[in-house]
């Protein structure tokens, strides 16, 4: 269910021998007609049965399942001091991770021992960041790293940033410790892979809010719990991508090694691992990004760092300060992303370029290491190199500018935005939501299963049936349908944006280069930051939640579609041009149809990303499942219901993932 994962998988799909596509268009038409027929039947039945067996549940009402989950949670809390599982298992894990986090914090962010400052000051960290970036990648990203880290200091957020970096590094380290070996295993064994996939899906779609409170019971408040929460969310991408990398090493290469008499161990160490190194580094990259996405959420259980600044600023609706801290997260994410991306591509680039400097590289590395060591020593010893100088004036300028922009937008745009909101809400969202929530549950279930079978085949149908059954069992069916309606509307809007910008970016490298940094920023900027202006523009409504989800999900869809459009062979486009097609015809008749698998993938990822924003939506008026989860996090009596709502979000995610993936396989075959 991750971005980076799905892409290679579909391209792997395309490598399979493509069967001749004679009847494909005919079949597609009949398929959409069947879907249409299902919808018509549904509408007719809805008209007759409206309002019956809708399984609705008021905000404060509970089912037996919810109460049982509450009791389980309570008994864990009551027995934690006498339970041997806690004394000898969870406490030990906590101790190890806590020590790791404290160690890194002492190194770069927190006063350690009797020193009023950390062991390594800002100069040392900046020097190390530059040196490491240069050593693993190239001098261009090293400059970026130095500039980026210095900027964090200028923002007046040095210590907060280092706390965030310390937590992120610890979490990524722990995540990779588990993810890489398990990923290799899942890559070698088909069975391990089959067992791992649903667990990973679960780890990635289960809203963090659901397990945040119990985590503090198991691992106490603070660094350890925050790290573990981050690991749960951030480990899956590395695991999936490693498995995929191992699996996509050409079979012929492995056979060649076997025929030369290599043992299993040798072929793993000498063939599989080296050949998949590049992709594995991309997995590390995804894990780092996922870990940074958890910064603000971890702040809710007292994780130190930038997230705390964001959360606290928003208590007094201080958008400027929140934006400044959010920007620091974005800067850190962009630095880490570019460095790891460059690192994964370095080996090849260096080999190909045959740079004369290459000979000198080893000596230069030693020399650079010495410079970095001197800087570290200075920052350990002297105050000017330990504490970032200045009072963060850049930060307050940024905060003020952000405040001004927000105020301007609120004053001048709110009439416009309210109109837009009402059109979408009344024209699209409300009718759709009524259809889903006021139909009898079995009717909606049957329609969903029918659509799944038509689009994805019988196996997708069975998965959907199981998911529908479990959704009913969670007791939050009605809230689930409300959330589903918003999710689908948001996904439709995401796809519209994705097609417009994706095609534009796919057709022009210049546009791509200009737009891409904005997309990156939209993906890592904590949603909490832009929620306040959105609230001012759209009020506490479901639409605000939809807009927030679009900001987060559209970049993924846009990037995937842009890549898809770009991979359409240039010769095909030229051929179409020479037959006299105009631009519009080329886009609609050639590029989009040929990028169909990218479109399906974009829909899949768009939906999953929108679903991951359901909880954030609950904070700004979306109600339904998102609110249930937030309420469960805040109130003991609602804990069980929140957990059930979290499960419902996972089920919706799994259902749509399986349907769209099955549909994608059909369209590519």
């Amino acid at each position, binding site marked *: 269910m991750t971005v980076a994962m799905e892409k290679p998988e579909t391209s792997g799909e395309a490598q399979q021998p493509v069967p001749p596509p004679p009847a494909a268009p005919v079949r597609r038409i009949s398929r959409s007609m069947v879907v249409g027929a299902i919808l018509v039947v549904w509408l007719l039945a809805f008209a007759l049965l409206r309002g019956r067996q809708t399984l609705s549940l008021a905000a404060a009402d509970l089912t037996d399942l919810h109460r049982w989950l509450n009791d389980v949670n309570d008994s864990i809390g009551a027995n934690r001091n006498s339970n041997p599982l806690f004394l000898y298992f969870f406490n030990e894990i906590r101790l190890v991770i806590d020590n790791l986090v404290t160690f890194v914090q002492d190194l770069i962010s927190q006063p350690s021992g009797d020193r009023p400052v950390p062991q390594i000051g800002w100069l040392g960290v900046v020097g190390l960041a530059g040196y490491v970036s240069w050593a693993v990648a190239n001098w261009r990203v090293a400059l970026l790293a130095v500039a980026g880290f210095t900027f964090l200091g200028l923002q007046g957020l040095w210590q907060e940033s280092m706390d965030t970096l310390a937590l992120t590094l610890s979490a990524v380290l722990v995540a990779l410790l588990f993810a890489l070996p398990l990923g290799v295993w899942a890559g070698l064994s088909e069975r391990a892979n089959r067992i791992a996939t649903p667990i990973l899906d679960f780890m990635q779609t289960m809203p963090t809010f659901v397990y945040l409170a119990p985590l503090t019971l198991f691992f106490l408040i603070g660094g350890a719990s925050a790290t573990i929460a981050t690991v749960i969310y951030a480990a899956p991408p590395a695991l999936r991508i490693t498995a995929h990398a191992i699996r996509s090493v050409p079979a012929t290469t492995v056979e060649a090694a076997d025929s030369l008499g290599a043992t299993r161990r040798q072929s793993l160490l000498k063939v599989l691992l080296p050949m998949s190194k590049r992709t594995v580094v991309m997995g590390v990259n995804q894990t780092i990004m996922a870990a940074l996405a958890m910064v603000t959420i971890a702040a809710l259980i007292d994780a130190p760092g930038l997230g705390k600044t964001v959360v606290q600023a928003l*208590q007094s609706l201080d958008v400027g300060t929140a934006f400044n801290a959010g920007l620091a997260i974005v800067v850190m994410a962009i630095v880490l992303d570019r460095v790891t991306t460059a690192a994964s591509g370095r080996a090849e680039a260096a080999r190909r370029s045959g740079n004369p400097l290459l000979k000198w590289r080893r000596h230069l590395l030693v020399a650079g290491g010495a410079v970095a060591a001197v800087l570290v020593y200075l920052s350990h010893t002297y105050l000017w190199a330990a504490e970032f100088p200045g009072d963060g004036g850049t930060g307050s300028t940024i905060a003020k500018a952000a405040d001004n922009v927000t105020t301007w937008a609120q004053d001048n745009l709110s009439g416009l935005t309210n109109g837009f909101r009402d059109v979408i809400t009344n024209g699209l969202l409300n009718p759709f939501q009524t259809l889903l929530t006021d139909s009898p549950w079995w009717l909606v279930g049957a329609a969903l299963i029918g659509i799944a079978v038509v689009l994805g085949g019988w196996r997708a149908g069975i998965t959907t049936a199981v998911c529908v059954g479990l959704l009913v069992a969670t007791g939050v069916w009605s809230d689930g349908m409300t959330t589903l309606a918003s999710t689908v509307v948001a996904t439709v809007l995401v796809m519209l944006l994705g097609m417009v910008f994706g095609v534009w970016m796919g057709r022009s490298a210049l546009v791509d280069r200009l737009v891409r940094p904005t997309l990156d920023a939209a993906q890592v900027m904590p949603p909490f930051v832009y929620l306040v202006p959105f609230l001012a523009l759209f009020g*506490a409504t479901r639409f605000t939640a939809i807009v927030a989800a679009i900001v987060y999900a559209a970049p993924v869809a846009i990037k995937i579609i842009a890549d898809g459009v770009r991979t359409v062979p240039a010769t095909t486009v030229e051929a179409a041009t020479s037959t006299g097609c105009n631009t519009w015809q080329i886009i609609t008749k050639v590029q989009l149809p040929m990028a169909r698998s990218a479109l399906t993938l974009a829909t899949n990822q768009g939906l999953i990303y929108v679903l991951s924003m359901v909880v954030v939506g609950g904070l700004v008026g*979306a109600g339904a499942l998102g609110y249930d989860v937030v*309420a469960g996090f805040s109130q003991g009596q609602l804990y069980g219901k929140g957990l059930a709502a979290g499960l419902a979000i996972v089920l919706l995610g799994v259902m749509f993932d399986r349907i769209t993936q099955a549909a994608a396989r059909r369209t590519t075959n």
Partner: protein
Amino acid sequence: MARHWRAGAAGLAVLGLTLTACGGAKVGDSSEAGGSGSSGKCGTFNLAVNPWVGYEADAAVVAYVAEHDLKCKVTKKDLKEEIAWQGFGTGEVDTVLENWGHDDLKKKYITQQKTAVEAGSTGNKGIIGWYVPPWLAKAHPDIKDWKNLDKYAAKFKTSESGGKGQLLDGDPSYVTNDEALVKNLKLDFKVVYAGSETALIQAYRNAEKNKQWVIGYFYEPQWFLSEVPLVKVDLPAYKTGCDADPAKVACDYPVYDLDKIVSAKFARSGSPAYDLVKKFNWTNDDQNTVAKYIAVDKMTPDAAAKKWVEANRGKVDAWIK
């Protein structure tokens, strides 16, 4: 090759020496760099900070006094209520400074698990209720009586309220009976969950500025009231026991006597910080002043506490006698 290497090393050494020579103050040299001088007597004081500015004001002042007068090492932990209470048992939290009722939590952690004990009132009176923006109360004074709410229900309609008037609720962790109230008072309203205090405040701010119709859940003491003085709507008066059955509530919220909760272990520890917490007591106006320093004047909690403590030395001295 070797020559280059030697040249590089020499250059580095020179660079290193130059930098060292122009060094400056060393870490640990100056006394001002220290700052965190903590005495053994008080030790560490773990203070939970729940996520609203009023609480932050309490915590800022108590932490400031504990640090400067009692020389404690104060660790503030930003936590939601439920998790903060959970922390009493795990030993990670010593004090919750502003508790709003929460009989459920009291039952679980004080009566059943016996990990927490009460430490008296903060002196603040907590008021919960339905509020409208000031322009609305001025334009339609009769809206302050709940009996007239239905008359205006259509005005409060939004895209979220399904044809009824909208009653906006905020953060789910706050005490609320609103859904039952709407039902039992037979009002033509629907409770819409904004989901966070941020969303709620923003809604009121817009409503006052653009003269929009908004009615919702709010509470005092709250810093936002000094920016927009919201007006409370009178619900049927509270009488003891009228909220006994949550499903049948048809009366206003009681006035909450906000109180302090400490962990049982902390209460037995004999720490001077415990005595401070126990004696800590101030008025709604005091809290609003500090909260305003933090939220409106954008001072850090520590600076806000310093300003208030210096102006109110007499009150503070009574807490640490």
